[in-house]
């Protein structure tokens, strides 16, 4: 706590409080309480709606088989094997990160160390512009440009590959921008020091700058992973949506989010509960990712100041 704040508190900030202050305190407290209630309701409703599915699985001891053995997704017959869609979600997400991270990192290095200032400015502008483009527009572009291109090479076209390419294009601006800001926040002395030592550019970048910016880059990558995992429309439009284990790059797949969007309109009873359960699963995965990012931040802060 900074000294100014300490003085404020020791002087008793509360002692100057007027009636208006008490009213404001009441109002914001009320708003906060309302928001907490609303956000608690989200979790409550997700669990409550998926409860029939979860509890029936527990009772018969069949939840794990349903999730992880391939019993097929036949909602009308009461068979809710989600594993092909979980695998497809993971494959699409990992594929998109595997494409976007190296390319995005390389463009960040280019932006930070190689580009001429006016070009870097234009590049940054383009990345910012594209980071704000709705995912449905990327989906539309993938459907009308990319899928026909892949079809002419390896039919049917709408496939794992198309989903990976569209998603990686979508998260590329985010990855590049966060990596660039991580590189920019590396202390200047490290760079000047390594220059003074006469290190080569390659050594500077790979042995000095990248390790120093590691946690910032990883943080951006985790954010992008969460976005790729949760993306619905862009994947739904180009992935072909056949429920099957992802065996090849050119096979159509259906991911968890797309499954919810496709079937929610007519799902009833257990089927609806199963869709809510897959939503819960997505939330859990995102929670794991943000936990990892949180740990990473703490380690980075400790390494810096600890």
């Amino acid at each position, binding site marked *: 706590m900074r000294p100014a704040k300490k003085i404020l508190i020791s002087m008793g900030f509360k002692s*100057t409080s007027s009636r208006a202050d008490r009213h404001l305190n009441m109002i914001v407290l009320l708003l906060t309480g309302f928001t907490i209630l609303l956000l608690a309701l*989200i979790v409550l409703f*997700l669990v409550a709606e998926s409860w029939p599915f979860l509890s029936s699985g527990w009772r018969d001891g069949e939840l794990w088989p349903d999730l992880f053995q391939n019993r097929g997704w036949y909602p009308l017959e009461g068979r809710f094997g989600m594993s092909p869609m979980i695998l497809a979600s993971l494959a699409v997400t990992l594929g998109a990160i595997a494409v976007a991270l190296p390319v995005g990192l*390389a463009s960040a290095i280019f932006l930070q160390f190689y580009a001429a200032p006016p070009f870097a400015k234009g590049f940054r502008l383009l990345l910012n512009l594209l980071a704000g*483009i709705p995912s449905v527009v990327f989906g539309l572009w993938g459907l009308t440009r990319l899928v026909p291109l892949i079809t002419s090479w390896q039919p049917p076209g709408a496939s794992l590959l198309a989903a990976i390419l569209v998603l990686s294009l979508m998260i590329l601006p985010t990855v590049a921008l966060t990596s660039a800001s991580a590189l920019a926040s590396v202390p200047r002395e490290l760079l000047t020091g390594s220059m003074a030592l006469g290190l080569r550019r390659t050594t500077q970048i790979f042995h000095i700058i990248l390790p120093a910016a590691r946690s910032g880059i990883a943080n951006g990558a985790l954010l992008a992973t*969460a976005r790729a995992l*949760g993306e619905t429309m862009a994947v739904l439009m180009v992935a072909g949506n056949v429920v099957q284990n992802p065996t090849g790059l050119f096979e159509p797949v259906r991911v968890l989010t797309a499954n919810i969007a496709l079937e929610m309109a007519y799902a009833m009873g257990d089927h609806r509960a199963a869709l809510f359960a897959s939503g819960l699963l997505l939330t859990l995965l995102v929670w794991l*990712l943000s936990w990892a990012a949180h740990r990473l931040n703490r380690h980075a802060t400790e390494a810096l100041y600890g």
Partner: protein
Amino acid sequence: MADRVLGWLVSACALLVVSSLVWVLADVVIEGVAHISWQFLFTAPEDAGRAGGIGPILVSTLWILLIALAVAVPLGLGVAIWLSEFAHRHGHFVGSAQITLDILAGVPSIVYGLFGNAFFSVYLGLGFSLLSGGLTLACMILPVFVRTCETGLRAVSDDWRSGALALGMSRSSAIWHILLPVASPAIVAGLILGIGRATAETAALLFTSGYVDRMPGSLLDSGRALAVHIYDLSMNVTGGDGAAYASALVLVLLIMMLNTLAQSLVDSWFKRSLVLP
């Protein structure tokens, strides 16, 4: 030698990124401009959207956005003020609230759609309507908005607070006349993030605000948002690609326009209450 190879490599990657992004952008602009006209903006869609325009869809989109912002902005500002000014700064509650909000900010939009369908459409009985769509989006943008505003308020230097105290200002007028105006760039950033996410949202609206492309008669009517229209045209309507690209162009321009509007609104709102050196 290695230096030169690395230089080539990163330049090639940058070129690849620029060219593919320009390809997407150019496609949207070229295909969109070919199909767009004033008539397209203001007439109703005909023949499942192949012909006609997007008039009612624009109206529905703006209504949904308006509802979402009208709910999320006051709530979000209140929570942000409470978290940064009233709550115990380093208490456990604030820490866990921040983590919870960060997690909720990352939850996929389709999960908010599931919640909106279960709570607003079914439990509260609002059905497929603009109101349930807008409220769902409000829940979706709330965590991000709170976190950006809170970070902005926290970043305001304590000198402002002690200055206000020294002048004998009450806490509420200090917040209203000093802290909020100083933190207004963060509020604008939060607004822009929220507007961008809400206007671009498709998945959460599919089963909360529905699919109907008529002009909505009231807030309890179902209405189709622009992003949903693009999805429907490209996936379910053969020969709808031209109209889909035109709608995509309108959507991108709409987001840009709204961002500029938000920026200038917040600026003019706070300008009269504070003159910064």
